[in-house]
Every structure is written in C-alpha cells, then in structure tokens.
C-alpha cells in the first residue's frame, strides 16, 4: 500500500494499522492437525515453519519464494490475500491447499472458502469494513504431499506462471488432488473436473497431459513484459507435470 502511495496511486485519508494486535500474529496447529495462520504473520515467519509439511508444505514453499528477504520481513499473509494480485504467490498456494479465509467485520466473523474469495484482479469477497484475521488450512492427511513451483524471469520477480499442487497418494494411485495455476488470469484457477479425472490414476505423463490441456483451455493469461499469453499457455503443461512430480517426490519419497 505504501508503495502505491509513494507512486501516487491510492490517496487514503485514513490508514488503520493492525501491527500491534498480538492476536493477529503467529501460527498454531490444532488437535486434528489443521493449521491456523494469523493474518499479520510475515512471509519470513511462514517460510521458516517446519510444521508446514506434507500436504501443507505448499504454503511454506510459496512464502519462501515471495520477493526478497527485506520484503519477506515486512509483507503479511493477510496483506497479500487482500491485495489479490493475480501474479502473487500466496493466492495460488492457498487455493491448492484448500484454505478457509477467516474474516471479521462489524457484523461478526465469517469463513470464506478460498475458492470463493478471489473474484478478479485485485478484487476479493471482502465486504466494506471487513478485515482478514487469518487462514485455516485443512489437516494434512498421512499420505499427502504438496509443492509450489514458481517459474519467474529472475529470483524474486512475480511468477510468469506458477503451479501449486496438493496431492494424496495411496497404494500406487492418486486419492485426491488440487492443482492451482497462478499468473494466468485475473485470479488463480482450478479446474475441478480435470482434478477429478486424475483421482485413481498413477499420475502418469499421459494423464497429466490431459489435465494440463484442460488448464490451458480454462486459463486466460495476459500478454505482458513477463511473457505473451501464447508463451504462458505453451509452458503450462511442462510446469504442471513437473510440479506434480516434485510433489510426489517431496520429502516422504512416496514415489521414486
């Protein structure tokens, strides 16, 4: 926001800081394994959270790839979500993780599923007077892994294309999968029908190619200085396959 003010874009008459509200910082793991991250938790703190593993590693990996060290010491989870920049890392990662966004306002608290939170470029389901107080990540299942794959021109830039994956795997087959694609439209996108078609498969190259085709068809990437729309569509299939493979090979070595 201050960057925008410096550039003369928003000219707020009032700014309310949330930085001294202690309840808006930190992360807790609940009894069932669900994780709550408060809205004012900075990216550096999330990036250092070893408890974000398995099916939730995607959130830690995204935090670690946001911009640069000084920015990660300043930027917050809630700030990134409220900004809803279509090229940002957290929105894509949280969509794959299946997060619930916890909101509070004059009429009380409510939960907004991440699938319904991002409405368009820089536009969210936040109502006037509401703030984000945190996110809740569904408990990771035993045989789940996840990853965030960011393809960018240089380290620290916004993604040209990013892919976030949360996948369940048992007895040699996929039991559940969420795939989110970033920087390819006004919001990060999922294609639930393509995800459903992957359940029960071995996530082999042929199955992933079909899924990637559905994502290419569903997305609406921009043409800008990071790449043309055609270029982005061209690299999506390779990145999607790589992201799923990375997720399956992550820390627990589910699949060789």
């Amino acid at each position: 926001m201050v960057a925008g003010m410096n550039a003369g874009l928003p000219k707020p008459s009032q700014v309310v800081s949330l930085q001294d509200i202690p309840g808006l910082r930190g992360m807790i793991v609940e009894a069932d394994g669900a994780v709550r991250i408060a809205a004012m938790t900075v990216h550096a703190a999330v990036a250092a959270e070893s408890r974000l593993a398995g099916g939730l590693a995607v959130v830690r990996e995204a935090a670690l790839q946001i911009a640069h060290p000084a920015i990660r010491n300043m930027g917050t989870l809630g700030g990134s979500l409220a900004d809803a920049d279509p090229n940002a890392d957290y929105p894509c990662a949280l969509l794959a993780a299946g997060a619930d966004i916890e909101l509070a306002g004059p009429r009380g608290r409510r939960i907004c599923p991440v699938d319904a939170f991002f409405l368009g470029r820089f536009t969210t389901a936040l109502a006037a007077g509401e703030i984000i107080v945190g996110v809740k990540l569904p408990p990771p299942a035993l045989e789940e892994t996840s990853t965030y794959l960011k393809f960018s021109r240089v380290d620290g830039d916004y993604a040209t294309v990013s892919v976030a994956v949360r996948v369940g795997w048992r007895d040699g087959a996929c039991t559940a999968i969420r795939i989110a694609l970033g920087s390819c439209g006004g919001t990060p996108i999922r294609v639930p029908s393509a995800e459903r078609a992957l359940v029960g498969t071995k996530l082999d190259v042929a199955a992933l190619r079909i899924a990637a085709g559905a994502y290419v068809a569903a997305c609406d990437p921009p043409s800008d200085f990071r790449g043309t729309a055609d270029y982005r569509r061209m690299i999506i299939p390779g990145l999607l396959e790589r992201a799923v493979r990375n997720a399956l090979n992550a820390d627990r070595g589910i699949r060789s």
Partner: protein
Amino acid sequence: MSTDRTTLSFHVNGDPQAVAIPIHRTLLEVLRDELALTGAKKGCNTGTCGACNVLVDDVMIRSCLRLAVSVAECKVTTVEGLARNGMASAVQQAFLDAGAIQCGFCMTGMIVSASALLAQNPAPTRDEIRIAISGNLCRCSGYVKVVDAIELAASRFRQGNAAEAAAMEIRI
C-alpha cells in the same frame, strides 16, 4: 492526503529521537529529511531496489515502505550506525578492501543486507550471499565484487583476531 502531524519517538543508531512529522511520512523520508541520515537512499521508492534497507528492532526492512509512525518506540539502525568510533564495521571495511563499490548508490543497502546476513549466518556460502542480496539492485552490475566483499567480511569475522574483531563486530 491528511495534513495531520504527530510526534514520533524512536531510537536511531542508539540515540533517542523525537521528531514532529506529517503522519503519512515514510521512515526513509524522516531519516533523510528530518535527521539528515542520507545513507539510506531513495532509489525506486516502491520497495524494489533495496537501497533504503535499514534494520528495525534488528530486522531488515525497506524504509521506503514503512510509514514512520509504525516504528514508534522501535530501535532503528541505519548504515551510519554500523560504524563505531569512526571505525568502519567489518562489512564496510571489506567492501572497501574488495573494491566492491562502483557508483556507490546501492552500496549502503548492500551493506545493511550483508550485515543482517552475517549476524544470522557467519559462514554463508556464495549462494546464500547471493540470496541475501537478491533484493538489492546494482545498476553498475557489480555483483561479483559485492559477493567477494561479503565473503571477505565473513572470513575475517570467523578468524576473529583481536585487531579485526573490534572492526568486525556486527552491530545490529
């Protein structure tokens, strides 16, 4: 933009300060324009270039992106605060000795990044050094000697002989 003013009390390089400022001033503007600490530079003013890096309560941040009112009662350290008794810090001396300075504009931000890195990790690899300065743009593209300088500072820091130890103390 509001014309309201407030008095900001905080510590800068160990000294208590109280300055009357318009409430929308950034920390960078207060440091440069009110306190004449011009080590932190106004490069991009949008958080991209890293030339304005300072430490707030020992955490490195972009001073152009912090409203000054948000550092009330905090401890701010600028590049000027790294030297002591007229003696350059280990990192500053290593930048001089390694010839890591071209036009100099990015250098103070680089030194703050390097100091923050070495305070946490006194034996960084070259890759870790590159990551630490990844948010510092050098338009002379003089990155190799900057990495050399930080390696030199780290090696002196680890050797820690008495004469150098004083200069090497990383004060954050």
